[in-house]
């Protein structure tokens, strides 16, 4: 039975349609006009317990709005959501006991108090026992290094510390379903690595995770399934490996030759590969369809006939695939 199920979920907002400048503002005072804007458009989504799902899309695609619908913050215009069998909006408080939420761009820490005070308040809100609270704080300290800034005022924390503290706040009650909305936004690489390792551990422990991020490394390292949303609609929903297998059909060999490399001449000599010039005059790339040739065959062919000084292999990243999905070049 799914832990989360959304059916035909839609959210429309009404936005003021003002003309530009002072005249437009005055006109809007007496003659109000509005435009309807569809942020989420008839989405179907089902998540099983223990799944780790990446929810990705370009800016304004409807990711955060979907998270707010799934967490009960927003009421759907149409459609239904059930989280552990409950409507998260009308049964908000009961639902809140079982979910953990982190919005990367908004903190839930009390700004002018030590981090410890915020966590203690949440302990009381969720009714966490003293023993469980201590055990979880110790675990967060071990995995997130929380102890070093527990006594610090929230407003004095670095962004990385703030995000780690916010993550602890979202997980202090050991929720079954966790929503993380851009948890690594603005963080440096070392803090990102630490957070990703923590999230992997969380998934391994059986927590269900829905993660939105623009950082595709977050997605590849933490999630098994990816849902791509664009203009409020789901463009792809499936395992990340399947997305790669389905859309990553080519591989490339990057060659550095001893002399200048002429891509056009090479295309005539090796017409079954696609050739493109590299950054330096001696660099050239041969792209081949992985279903037609094995890498060994291609390497044998090119090294025997071109005797390159050096070579490397590459394949399109998940980022390239998603970029092409956003651009509408690929369809499911």
């Amino acid at each position, binding site marked *: 039975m799914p832990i989360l199920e959304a059916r035909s979920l839609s959210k429309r907002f009404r936005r003021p349609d003002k003309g530009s400048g002072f005249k437009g503002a005055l006109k809007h005072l007496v003659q109000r006009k509005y435009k309807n804007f569809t942020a989420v458009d008839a989405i179907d989504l089902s998540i099983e317990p223990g799944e780790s799902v990446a929810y990705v899309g370009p800016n304004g695609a409807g990711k955060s709005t979907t998270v707010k619908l799934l967490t009960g913050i927003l009421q759907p215009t149409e459609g239904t959501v059930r989280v552990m069998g409950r409507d998260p909006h009308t049964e908000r*408080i009961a639902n809140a006991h079982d979910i953990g939420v982190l919005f990367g761009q908004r903190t839930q820490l009390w700004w002018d108090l030590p981090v410890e005070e915020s966590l*203690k*308040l949440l302990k009381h809100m969720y009714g966490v026992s003293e023993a469980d609270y201590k055990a979880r704080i110790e675990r967060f300290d071990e995995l997130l290094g929380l102890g070093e800034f527990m006594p610090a005022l929230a407003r004095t924390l670095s962004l990385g510390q703030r995000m780690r503290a916010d993550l602890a706040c979202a997980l202090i009650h050991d929720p079954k379903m966790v929503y993380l909305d851009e948890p690594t936004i603005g963080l440096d690489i070392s803090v990102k690595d630490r957070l990703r390792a923590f999230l992997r551990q969380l998934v391994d422990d059986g927590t269900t995770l829905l993660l939105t991020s623009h950082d595709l490394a977050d997605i590849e390292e933490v999630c098994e399934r990816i849902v791509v949303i664009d203009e409020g609609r789901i463009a792809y929903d499936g395992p990340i490996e399947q997305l790669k297998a389905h859309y990553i059909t080519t591989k490339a060999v990057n060659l550095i030759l001893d002399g200048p490399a002429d891509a056009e001449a090479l295309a005539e000599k090796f017409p079954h590969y696609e050739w493109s010039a590299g950054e330096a005059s001696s660099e050239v790339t041969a792209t081949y369809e992985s279903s037609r040739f094995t890498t060994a065959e291609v390497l044998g062919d090119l090294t025997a006939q071109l005797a390159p000084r050096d070579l490397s292999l590459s394949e399109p990243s998940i980022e390239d695939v998603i970029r092409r999905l956003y651009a509408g070049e690929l369809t499911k």
Partner: protein
Amino acid sequence: MADAIAAPRGHRFAADRALALISFKRRLAYKTTWLFSITFGGWQLLVGIVVWEHIIGAGSVGGYDWDAMRAYLLIGFVTSTIAWGGADWQMANRILDGLVAIDMTKPVDFQRARAAEYVGGAASVLPTAVLGAVAAWFLFDPQLPVTPLAGVLTVVSILFIFPMAFGVGYLSIMLCFWTRRYLGIQWAKDGFVAFFSGMMVPLALMPGWLQVLSWCLPFPHFTTTPAAIYLGRVDTLGALGLIAAEAAWVVVMWGGARLIWRRAIKKVTIHGG
């Protein structure tokens, strides 16, 4: 809305206490502002004493002689300190900055949580009210309550200012869901409270129709009610009636706010991250 179906009762009270305490601590975190509010409150009382002594002299105005007016001003100082003690703008900012989204992911009733915070914040001004009142008592020797029972009922009526001030403040911040701004609403609300409560000028000095209008609103209970009980302008039965009216306003504002919240929650439109 099923918001009321919540965690076990013990958890809810523990959460209320924790929210009130954290709100209290937040106020004390800004010690300079806190000390400034004590000083400013005392300064307002001193100005009131000087001005009204000049106006009343040896006679009386609106039924208040100088002895009664000193007591009125002292009660006004205590009630206004409590009434302005809550942080409406903090509640408003949670809505305007979109932090209401985070509040809605927590297993607490939004209104009840804000009430707990409000009371905790307002309690931080109690030292101001008590210290100021004691100092003023020694300095200006105001008259005692007409009877010991009147004194007790005055304290009860003053305690009702906490939930009433929350009710007025909370209803005013609900408007932010529609206006997307709070400054103008706050000015209007503060103006209404100061004018119709009798904090600025005793209601007895206003035209009859304005007094009638005032008593149709909750605001007179912020100063005029405790002062009337203390000075014996109403008998015991009248005092109990006024306290009952305060309780009724608390219930009406609490219930009204619940109804408005049901509509307001549909106006939550937090775009982007």
